[in-house]
């Protein structure tokens, strides 16, 4: 088991590298930079700032497009030079890109995600530091809702198969899958906050604030878990070893809890991996609806504001958590299913 974990952990790094590289390429390929949308800045100042962000690499310029190193060049003149020497310009850009990649990678490895493109006096790390715990709490609450409601509904549906409890559970589950969370959220706010005045509609200042967003985020997963639990349990209950357990005279409680659950839970545990991925994605919308200052919110704002460094960092941090979570899920799966362990 230890070796299995070790090998998996080792495998995380290449994947993270792939994610980092993909995001970086997207970032480099995107038109525009951190300074375009604002009031025009003197060319020299702009150049210095670009050098600071490693968007300019003097070594590369000197090597491939020395004309750029002329002091006092205006932005317009630069554009002219690049247009005239298109080929050399492309190589120079590639070279700069490589340097920037190396610089960012070395920073990332040290946990430094660089400065925010939009809020230039704030570092991305600050955002992550404040947003990550919030999103994690939200995710945790959502998972709790999903597991409690999902497992409960699924078990009841399986035990009372084909009776009204089964149909009701599965109908609700189907509804849960079909209603988008950005419809459910506002509706719940309308009912519980604005009409009934039981719960707060927005922000994140205490445990009451976690209920509506947590439930909204978790509802879809509760629905899937309910269906998987029911399916898994029904499948298991048909197995021969359940008949053996009954033939041994064990109480129905033991038959279900000790014999059936182990096998029945497997599809749910397997599902948790992709579910967590969806949870992160869902938090983007939920945090927006409920005005929660979490990473999902920062991400979408960053994407829309073209705050590339922040967006990139969120993607990478997200990937780290996802990979670790998947690893944990696989380990748990191995613990639950002894057949897997000895392969």
């Amino acid at each position, binding site marked *: 088991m230890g070796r299995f974990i070790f090998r998996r952990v080792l495998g995380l790094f290449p994947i993270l590298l792939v994610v980092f590289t993909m995001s970086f390429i997207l970032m480099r390929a995107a038109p525009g930079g951190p300074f375009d949308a604002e009031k025009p800045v003197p060319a020299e100042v702009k150049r210095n700032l670009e050098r600071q962000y490693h968007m300019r690499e003097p070594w590369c310029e000197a090597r491939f497009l020395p004309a750029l190193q002329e002091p006092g060049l205006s932005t317009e003149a630069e554009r002219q030079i690049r247009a005239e020497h298109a080929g050399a310009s492309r190589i120079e850009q590639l070279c700069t890109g490589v340097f920037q990649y190396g610089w960012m990678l070395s920073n990332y490895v040290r946990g430094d995600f660089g400065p925010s493109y939009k809020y230039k006096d704030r570092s991305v790390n600050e955002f992550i530091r404040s947003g990550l715990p919030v999103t994690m709490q939200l995710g945790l609450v959502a998972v709790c809702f999903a597991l409690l409601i999902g497992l409960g509904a699924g078990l009841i549906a399986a035990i009372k198969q084909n009776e009204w409890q089964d149909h009701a559970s599965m109908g609700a589950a189907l509804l849960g899958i079909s209603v988008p969370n950005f419809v459910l959220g506002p509706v719940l706010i309308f009912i519980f906050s604005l009409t009934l005045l039981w719960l707060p509609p927005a922000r994140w200042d205490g445990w009451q604030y976690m209920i509506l967003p947590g439930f909204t985020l978790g509802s879809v997963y509760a629905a899937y878990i309910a269906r998987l639990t029911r399916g898994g349990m029904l499948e298991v209950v048909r197995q*021969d*070893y359940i008949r*053996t357990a009954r033939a*041994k005279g064990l109480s129905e409680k033991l038959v279900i809890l000790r014999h059936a659950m182990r096998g029945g839970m497997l599809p749910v545990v397997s599902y948790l991996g992709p579910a967590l991925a969806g949870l992160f994605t869902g938090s983007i919308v939920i945090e927006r609806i409920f005005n929660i200052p979490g990473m999902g919110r920062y991400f979408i704002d960053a994407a829309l504001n073209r705050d590339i460094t922040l967006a990139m960092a969120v993607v990478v941090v997200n990937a780290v958590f996802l990979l670790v979570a998947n690893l944990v899920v696989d380990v748990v799966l191995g613990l639950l299913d*002894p*057949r897997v362990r000895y392969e």
Partner: protein
Amino acid sequence: MSELILEVKDLHVHYAVEGAVSKAVDGVSISLPKGKTLAVVGESGSGKSQTMYGILGLVPQPPGKVFGEAALFDGEDLLRVSEKKLRQLRGDRIAMIFQDPMTALNPFLTVERQLTEVLESHKGISRKAARAEALEMLRRVGIPDPERRIDQHPHQFSGGMRQRVMIAMALLCRPALLVADEPTTALDVTIQAQILELLRNLQTELGSSMILITHDLGVVAGNADYVAVMYAGRVVERGTADQIFEAPLHPYTQGLLASVPRLDAAQKEQLVPIPGQPPDPTQLPSGCPFRTRCSKAEDRCAAAYPEVRRLGEGREVACWVA
């Protein structure tokens, strides 16, 4: 009455199947004296396993339905006893061994857990004490190195070993009646003989009675005192093993025996298989269900199900022609 460990009278097990009724067991009566072995023989689908499930309360109702005159286990009618009482009896006084030990054992639990829970549930002893007894039983059934193997999972055992574990599991509470449902069908031929011998020895040791369900006449010979032959949910012939083998009365029994190669048969004797297929339990032929495949069928065979003719103590046949 009290020398019979099991006496079943007119047992029925029906299933509701997509609008039709499947009569898996259609009026079965069998009996077994204490300490003896009864072999229930028939093709697959003849209702032999379903009979035992019906007696033990293992038939899910719905979609099944179990009813009958009586199913007396040591005097107590299992058809009229509470669910709780049935559960107490199962695993404790009546134990069952199933056909395929790979699917019949829970792959997620250790052998130790699956053994000790029987003792914990029925005898109320602690897990530690149960473990000691389980180890002893594993040794008895011939599992080598039991202290190590007991903590393993079923898939780490070979087929024959798994069946031994099943046997150990069934015998932990020293049951009065052991039901072995095709205990050797899923095993290699070489292992079959070992397992059957093990069952015989343990049965004698514990003084238990045994019901051996099988489709293989080779298993019956030498292992059973009494035989009940089943076809399409009914018992068509009953008797001692000697009677059945030496003087089979029912054409089906005769057909079965003729289709099995025997060491003492003349070399040129041909095997004669029984033509046709077993009937669909939702659409049984009128009268005697075997008549569609019977070489001796007459008109009266289609008119009504044959009356059961008694030819002596425990010797019965249900046939118009025999």
